[in-house]
């Protein structure tokens, strides 16, 4: 559905994308993750035909985006990070305008699906952020496209709004649509995605099916909270300990990824030998967040 090879984008000498590669298969929900400013929106703008790449190949829906003359030719649904509607239009009028027809049946279906049927006659200017996001997803679906590109659809929403947006994405998957959505809420990715791609500083760090990613990262993780701060040289020594794969430092604690459970014994012995008093020592499985932080710190 989407194939990207060596995608580069420059803005006034700044390289926002540095040879990005990406592949989205038909029918899957692809989670596009990365820290703020990593190039997610730039990539999505190019994929939606709204921006022109500096270099590289980019095929969406079988069309070469670099040769596109109008974004509408792609026949995809696109939801920008901050969808802008005409505040003086009602939800019903907005969908009617975007569909280009007076097909009340279609707009009615979409309003019902997005849970906005009761608000159809209200002006969009008075909508909450969550309602606007839902209307935006409805607007992306108005032409019944096979591919939807959603830029941060659940960000900046309250838990209820987020869960409603995730419900819509799951529904889209059920309809057989291909969804590419960007986010920095990793929990959302774990809940709805089939494949995950992580971008940082304009480069793809990894792109794998979520199940494979979880399988590859079954090693246990220890979150350790010391009472007092630990000397950097001690942490370096701990990182070199046999069985320790990675050590990530944060403000008041550190996280250790180990090869297997037996390593926990040597980690505890090391802490005891160095008289490090700990507040908590907990074991858990690897989350996407760990891969995200690990990926960013490795970069």
């Amino acid at each position, binding site marked *: 559905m989407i194939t990207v090879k060596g995608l580069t984008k420059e803005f006034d000498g700044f390289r926002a994308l540095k040879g990005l590669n990406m592949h989205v298969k038909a029918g899957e929900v692809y989670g596009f993750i990365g820290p703020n400013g990593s190039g997610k*929106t730039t990539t999505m*703008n190019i994929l*939606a*035909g*709204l*921006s*022109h790449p500096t270099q590289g190949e980019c095929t969406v829906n079988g069309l070469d985006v670099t040769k596109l*003359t*109008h*974004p*509408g030719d792609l*026949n*995809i*649904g*696109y939801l*920008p990070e*901050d*969808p*802008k*509607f*005409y505040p*003086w*239009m009602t939800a019903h*009028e907005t969908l*009617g*305008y*975007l*569909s*280009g*027809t*007076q097909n009340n049946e279609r707009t009615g279906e979409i309003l019902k699906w997005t849970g906005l049927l009761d608000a159809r006659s209200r002006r969009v200017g008075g909508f909450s952020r969550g309602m606007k996001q839902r209307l*935006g997803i409805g*607007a*992306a679906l*108005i*032409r019944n496209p096979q591919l939807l590109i959603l830029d941060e659809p659940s960000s900046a929403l309250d838990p209820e709004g987020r869960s409603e947006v995730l419900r819509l994405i799951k529904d889209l998957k059920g309809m057989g649509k291909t969804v590419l959505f960007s986010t920095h809420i990793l929990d959302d990715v774990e809940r709805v995605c089939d494949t995950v791609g992580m971008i940082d500083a304009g480069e793809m760090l990894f792109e794998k099916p979520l199940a494979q990613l979880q399988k590859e990262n079954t090693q246990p993780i220890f979150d350790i909270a010391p009472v007092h701060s630990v000397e950097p040289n001690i942490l370096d020594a701990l990182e070199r300990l046999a069985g320790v794969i990675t050590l990530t430092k944060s403000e008041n604690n550190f996280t250790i990824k180990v090869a297997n459970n037996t390593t926990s014994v040597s980690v505890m012995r090391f802490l005891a030998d160095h008289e490090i008093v700990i507040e908590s020592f907990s074991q858990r499985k690897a989350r996407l967040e760990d891969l995200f932080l690990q990926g960013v710190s490795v970069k």
Partner: protein
Amino acid sequence: MRTEITKELQYAIRSGRVLILLANFLFIALLTPVMLKVVLPMVLSGQLAGEATQGIGGLTDMTQLDCIRNYMDDVLQIGAIIIAFTLCGLTASEIRDNTWVLPLCAGKRFGRMVGAKLLVFGVLMVLIPIIALLVDYGYSGLLFGFEIGALPILYGGLLQGLYVLFLLSCLMMWGVLLKKPISAGFLTLATAFGIHFISSLLQFVEWTPSGLLAHANKLTPTLDSTLLIPLGMTVLLIVLMITLTLSRLKRMEWNTRNI
């Protein structure tokens, strides 16, 4: 195209743009006869009190035709400023606020979106000067007595409306080129007044859209070569500006983070 036209009509009405423009034109149309009939003689007699009042009669001896011409002179000077700043966001705001992103992705074409704006606001901006001129004609007729028929008024109003179409195209072009509503408004005024000033100075008004205003002021309906030149030039400029607008839109990047 129907949905695009409906959208522009809704915008024109709900944003109050039409009301603002109509109110301004009507205000000037109603104020001019009162100023000339009542206020001007009062001011002049007050200023010349105690002196020879023989000349006052000549100064205040206005007719309906004088009144209408006075209005036509004033309305497009003040009106151009009002139009420029009321409609300065016609294309610039759409780009700056990213409101064209969703329609573009939904398959809307630039030609249709710009065409609908030009059509709706063009018709409104032709109608508003005609309505205002008819109001001025009626009111000045009541105050000074009717002197001419309604046909020259319609003719004058139509030419003024065509000039406003030129302003509208100018606003849309500068809006797309600059992406800033206020700057688009200022540059439109600079373009319109600049053309008027330079062409008056170098005596080629007939070759510019300002020539339409000179013809409108004559209030004598004719379709001779002297009218065809400014008419043709205005149409040519409108076509050029709209072509430039569309060509720029097609090369533009969308959904940018505008500051």
